[in-house]
């Protein structure tokens, strides 16, 4: 179970981050720390994606709620534009 969870985290980490960065250092950063950072990078990426689409999601729901009046407004405005 624990092994499986670890595998999922590692898989996620690899999927969510793409290319490499040069790092030459004398210190061993430790597997735990690197995997945690990969996870955090993934979370940060996910948050960025969500916030990017958040507006659209909000608009989508706003439109759903307002849709009847919006249609009427749009209809009336197109009429006035046309006149």
């Amino acid at each position, binding site marked *: 179970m624990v092994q499986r969870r*670890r595998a999922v985290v590692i898989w996620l980490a690899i999927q969510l981050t793409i290319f490499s960065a040069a*790092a030459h250092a*004398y210190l061993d*950063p*430790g597997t*735990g720390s690197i995997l945690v950072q990969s996870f955090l990078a993934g979370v940060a990426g996910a948050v960025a994606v969500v916030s990017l689409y958040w507006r659209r999601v909000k608009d989508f729901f706003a439109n759903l709620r307002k849709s009847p009046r919006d249609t009427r407004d749009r209809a009336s405005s197109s009429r006035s534009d046309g006149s």
Partner: protein
Amino acid sequence: MTVQAPLEATDPDSSAVRAEPGSFRDPGGRIYWSGERVLRTVMPSAAEDFDYVESSGLIPSLVERGMLIPQTHQSLELLGEAANGAVYLLEHPRLDFISHPYEWPFRALQAAALLQLDLYLEAIERGVTLSDATAYNIQFDGARPLFIDRLSFRRYVDGQFWLGHRQFCEQFLNPLLLRSMFGIPHNAWYRGSPEGIGAAELSALLPLRRKFSWRVLTNVVMQGSLQQTRSSDARKAVASKLRFPKPAFVRMLRGLRTWIESLHPADRRPSTWQDYAGRNSYRDTEAEAKRKFVARFVGEHRPGIVWDIGCNTGDYSVAALQSGARRAIGFDFDQGALDLAFDRARTERLAFLPLFLDVTNPAPDQGWGQVERRGLQARARADAVLALALVHHIAIGKNVPLAAVVSWLTELAPRGVVEFVPKSDPMVVELLSLREDIFPDYNEEHFVQCLQQRARIVASEAVSASGRKLFAFERAPVI
């Protein structure tokens, strides 16, 4: 493979170049001593990063604000053959005292952690990162933390991982959490494990409810459990494919900074000595008489560095500083008193650093070759020692023979002030209240004899009605 034995300090006055045995981990350069001068080499492998950091403008800005030790360029000829292919040679001012994180009180470790994070945050804005995050790279000027390793600064490339994260957690975060979550001071554990406290170890102590905090979960629990990952495929993937974007790095540093700044010791009640001055047999006049005696002694002998053993909240260190001492290093075993002393030094901007010390078990020589982290005795460079209200705690509280106590104190510095508290004093009565008096030799006459065997008594004064007495001594010069 042969391992070169660390070079031992021979004659401190000689100008022969010797390598500092504690400086070997980073092949990018190391510290050398030339007599009393502190020199740092920069090797070819670190030269490119060194030039890059110099051109970033970061270094002078940090030095100016007292965050980083100053540096001057020197000729490599100073090192002679020891230069060994180095490309640059830097000189740093010699510090009055090197302290170890396991001697720092909670507040000092916290201040050092915040400095380490601030350095990262400032550096990254200029395209610079640090190659490590070891607490041994930080020393104290009074209560102000000072970073001492110029070579830790390296070029930052966007996407690089925070290589020092694990070390930061082990050497700063986890020891601080130990005290702030459980009320357990970090000093004993840290001393036994000079690389710090591991995430897995701390994680094992945490009750379940503690593990649900995001910060604890990521920095302690996850790191601890993932550290056990043995999969070589995972390691390879990590080494070649992954990146840690700069915004995530900065967010992580800021998050840790806010967290660490908010930590407090979780002590359930004030420690024994925290309210010492208020509670015990001290009277204002007695304390005043002692302060005056110390002030007169310091004014007369002008010691540069004063060690105050059993400093409590630092009253006599402050008296010494006000009378002209350049620096006071205080030692005490009471965490509550040390926290107060550190806060006092910080608020009043004193050249006073209070440190944790159990006099009967000082920090030993340890680490690689047992010379990497020197013990207290090896770092003793005090011009004067103060030991007020101390001797009875060691001689009666810990059964150390009076002669041995006096011998230890007089070896710490060539002169000093020591207080003798007689058996009739309420404090000693309390010490003996639950035990048999097995100390027939504990009296002023014997104390004076012991002191005179090792030093000349230059002044003495009774400071309380109970018979407490201060002695100023001067060690006989070694012939």
